[in-house]
């Protein structure tokens, strides 16, 4: 990969576990301790029940592609095109969608419904969740 560094999230106490859980090799999402619903993107409050008792839960790291696009346009200097942007539905967190890149395959073989699993691209302390197709 010759791409420039990915743009970085502004880290706070609520989103830090999401962006650093890759250090343990797991995908984690904020979850409400009161009503058990997942809360993504992370907030200081649960969207469903307004509880402030929020924790992070590890997910299996697998999922399925909801939909995707093959991007051909160069939006940022040095980023190699084409690449796949996809909406992935992570297993174990119904209703949550993660925008991500599908990597380690030809862009033309990606389809909605494809099973995928997480891998991480670590850049200076941020562990960006990416996904690859499950063979």
């Amino acid at each position, binding site marked *: 990969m010759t791409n420039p560094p990915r743009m970085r*999230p*502004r880290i706070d106490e609520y989103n830090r576990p999401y962006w650093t859980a890759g250090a343990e090799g797991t995908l984690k999402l904020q979850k409400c301790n009161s009503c058990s619903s997942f809360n993504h993107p992370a907030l200081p409050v649960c969207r469903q029940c307004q509880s402030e008792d929020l924790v992070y839960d590890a997910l299996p790291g697998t999922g399925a592609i909801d*939909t995707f696009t093959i*991007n*051909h346009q160069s939006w940022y200097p040095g980023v190699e095109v084409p690449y796949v942007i*996809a909406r992935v539905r992570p297993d174990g967190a119904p209703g949550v969608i993660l925008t991500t890149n599908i990597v380690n395959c030809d862009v033309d073989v990606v389809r*909605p419904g494809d099973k995928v699993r997480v891998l991480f691209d670590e850049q200076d302390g941020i562990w960006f969740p990416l996904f690859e197709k499950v063979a």
Partner: protein
Amino acid sequence: MASKEAYITGVGQSEVGVRLTRHPLLLTIDAVKEALADAGLTVDQIDGVSTYPGKMSGQPGFSPVGSEELADALGIKSKWHTGGGELPAQLAAIGNAAMAVKQGLARHIICFRTVYEAAAQARPDEYRPARGGDLPGAMQYLMPYWAMSASNWVAQYANRHVYKYGMKREQLGQIAINAHRNAQLNPRARNISKKELTLDEYMEARMITSPLCLWDCDRYSDCSTVVIVSAGDALDEVKATPIRIAAMAGSIDSFSWDQPEWTSSYDTGRDLWTYTDYTVKDVDTVQFYDGFAFLPLTWLEGLGFCERGSAHEFIDGGHRIALDGELPLNTFGGQLGAGRLHGFGFAHESVVQLRGEGGARQIKNKHQVAVATSGGGPMAAALLLTRD
């Protein structure tokens, strides 16, 4: 005094171009002057100003003029003004004005949207966007994946139509083909669209973000569009045929481009009909936000012109949505053919058509009811406009 109804009584527009050098405040005043003359009003009679998204110093090309700046420049003795981006899309600035005149806070309100993105890109020293810093909010979940353009976000919804419902490029292409055909009949689109677009040209175009190709994305333009909203009890001061804002609706879903299951055009479209006795069958022309060609399909489905997942069949061949079709769409060329006016062009054209002032592009059938929309990502707004 409160008024039962709100009307659009004047419309105006500046020159539309790419990399214009005329100052954006002057473009705005050009559009204001045209709208005032159209309505038969003078600036002394204006007592309110409304805009979207308000002056944005961090993105000076996206919104270079604010409501306070315009009121100051024109000496408007404003009794009510607003400008903000936290609205259900661009046309909500007109909706806000309608609510204000109904409350009696003002009688005649200038609503405007000025865009200067092409000029700003060409003159970065004058219009440099603020940069740098880590990504806050919802953008942190998109931008690191180089999903940097709204085209990427909309394309994924469009691709769902491709894979789930069988949408073909030949079908999606009818939006851009229709836009460029209509644009040839709009003198204000001359700087944007030079000629009609053929299906072959469309099919051969380079892909931007599948399934959206170059022709499916609007391009930065420089322009100001003005709509004057007046109270129903102030119509005797106006000379133009008033167009009633018969209903308006707006919605937001999840405040993030990647969490909604469907774009907000569906909720907004459904809700619009709950505020009126008119039905989808009464509509004579539609002016749908087409910053990306897929969005009008979501409006066709969301408003109920066809079933969810079938809009590509509805527009197949392009006859239905043509100027002489049963549901003429984007008769001025839309944003694809007439420039990225950013929402307000759809209200402007609805008024032109309902008054029967479209000239070469005037629809031939009945012209009493129009729907204008804006947005279509996580937020959307729609206006039902009637001549009655």
